[in-house]
């Protein structure tokens, strides 16, 4: 297996997965329900990676990522319904999703500026307040349906598109983490003062990571909106943020492979537990508690699958 991984280039694997997704979608190789689950796994994976960048790699604690997801979902939906609907060539949808991500990134910058002005754990409080603000702002804008929600988007999110964005997310976040800036983010997690003393501009590094993270949460929001074709402020409440936290801590902090596992396991389990009705929402938090007791760093905590590590970092690059 390890030899296979060594000789199968990551890019080839990504291309193969994408082609497979295209085939599945075009020829209906899997039934629609399974495709829906796969797409939800993909969207959750983007969210998990986005949050893992902040909570896992950078060691800060964001609890309001649903707010960024909401920003991306609403901006991309408004664009696709009110602006792009008339012409809508195939590239209109990725543009809308991209715009949703950009909007979320801009909002992320606004949140990051006051949060990272001082050292310490203000981020949790600020992001919590922020996600509440987003929810009440949307509830009070009638043009986007207020509390009733917003609809009219076509079902543009397909398996190949989700696959495409997952590959883009994994690729960008992996390269970011293994870059000079990524090293700075890890240094911030380990010891912020020591990071500053080695010359890392900790504030800039933290803001950059936060903007990248919120961008991808926004992308996930755009995909989500065009999958379910209906969004409401209630979709993006604290429960949604909690779900993201569960996926990050289930899979493992500071690990891309962990995020893949966490998002997959959570999404599949939530579906499998559907017969339990409302009780399934009690099972997941319980799982989280058990996890914190027996494996507090998650399945892959601070470890990475070898095939995700760039070749130049494989020796001398332990512990992300």
């Amino acid at each position: 297996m390890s030899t296979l991984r060594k000789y199968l280039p990551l890019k080839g694997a990504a291309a193969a997965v994408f082609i497979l997704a295209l085939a599945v979608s075009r020829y209906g190789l899997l039934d629609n329900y399974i495709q829906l689950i796969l797409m939800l796994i993909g969207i959750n994976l983007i969210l998990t990676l986005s949050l893992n960048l902040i909570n896992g790699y950078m060691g800060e604690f964001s609890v309001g990522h649903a707010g960024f997801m909401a920003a991306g979902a609403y901006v991309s939906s408004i664009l696709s319904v009110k602006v792009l609907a008339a012409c809508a060539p195939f590239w209109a949808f990725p543009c809308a999703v991209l715009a949703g991500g950009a909007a979320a990134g801009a909002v992320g910058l606004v949140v990051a500026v006051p949060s990272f002005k001082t050292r310490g754990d203000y981020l949790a409080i600020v992001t919590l307040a922020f996600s509440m603000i987003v929810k009440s702002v949307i509830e009070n804008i009638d043009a986007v349906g207020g509390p009733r929600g917003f609809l009219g988007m076509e079902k543009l999110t397909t398996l190949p598109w989700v696959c495409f964005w997952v590959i883009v997310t994994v690729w960008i976040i992996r390269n970011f983490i293994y870059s000079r800036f990524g090293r700075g983010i890890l240094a911030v997690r380990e010891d912020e003062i020591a990071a500053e003393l080695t010359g890392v501009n900790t504030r800039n590094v933290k803001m950059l990571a936060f903007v990248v993270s919120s961008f991808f949460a926004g992308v996930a929001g755009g995909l989500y909106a065009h999958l379910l074709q209906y969004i409401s402020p209630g979709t993006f409440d604290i429960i949604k943020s909690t779900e993201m936290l569960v996926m990050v801590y289930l899979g493992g902090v500071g690990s891309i492979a962990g995020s893949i596992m966490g998002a997959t396991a959570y999404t599949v389990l939530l579906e499998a537990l559907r017969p339990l009705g409302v009780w399934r929402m009690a099972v997941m938090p319980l799982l989280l508690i058990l996890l914190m007791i027996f494996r507090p760093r998650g399945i892959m905590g601070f470890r990475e699958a070898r095939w995700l590590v760039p070749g130049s970092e494989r020796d001398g690059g332990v512990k992300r």
Partner: protein
Amino acid sequence: MTPLLEVGAMTVNYGAIAAVRSVSFEVHSGEMVVLLGANGAGKTSILKALSGLIPSGGTARFDGAGLAGVPAHERVARGIAQVPEGRRIFYNLSVKENLLLGGWVQTSKAALKQDLARVLALFPRLEERLGQAGGTLSGGEQQMLAVGRALMSRPKLVVLDEPSMGLSPKLVDAIFAMLAEFHKEGMTLLVVEQNAAMAQTLATRAYVLEAGAIALSGPAAELRDNPLVRRAYLGA
């Protein structure tokens, strides 16, 4: 000749408590200067102020430019590298990553690679441990890592805060022998120490701090013979 580092009337206050009161000192290029003082004399406060981690009063000039308002990370780029108190290496990151972080200010990949090779040549022990997490190193190796990390930024001045702290006497000897070697090669060093005997044998000049102010200063050899210093620090 203008000094590389010139600190004038530095003050550091923690609320109403004055930790450093009007301390002036200078470090010339190629010198090894030692700040001596007992616990609470204000040594670490001076270094924290010097690295920009805490606000301070007075003036500070480094390499011809004022340091007022320059943030900590920018001071590293200007050439002040610090080996902080308690070493503060990144425990969960590998030795290699620790060193590469030391060269953060270096944006050219080729130059960074060169610097890494240079530092590893100085510390062959670190090369053996390159992939190991920093926290798994022994105390002496961690000190080497902290020094190596500081050297990665090609500093003009290396500031060391109690490099002998928590190390066995044998390792203290090794660390000071290494510092002496660096000094001989022309490196400029500012060392804060409690280990007065050792520090004074090696230093060019020394300042003795007492209760946040400089009590004595001069060539290290002269201070070594001063009865006050002998009584207070050398146990004679």
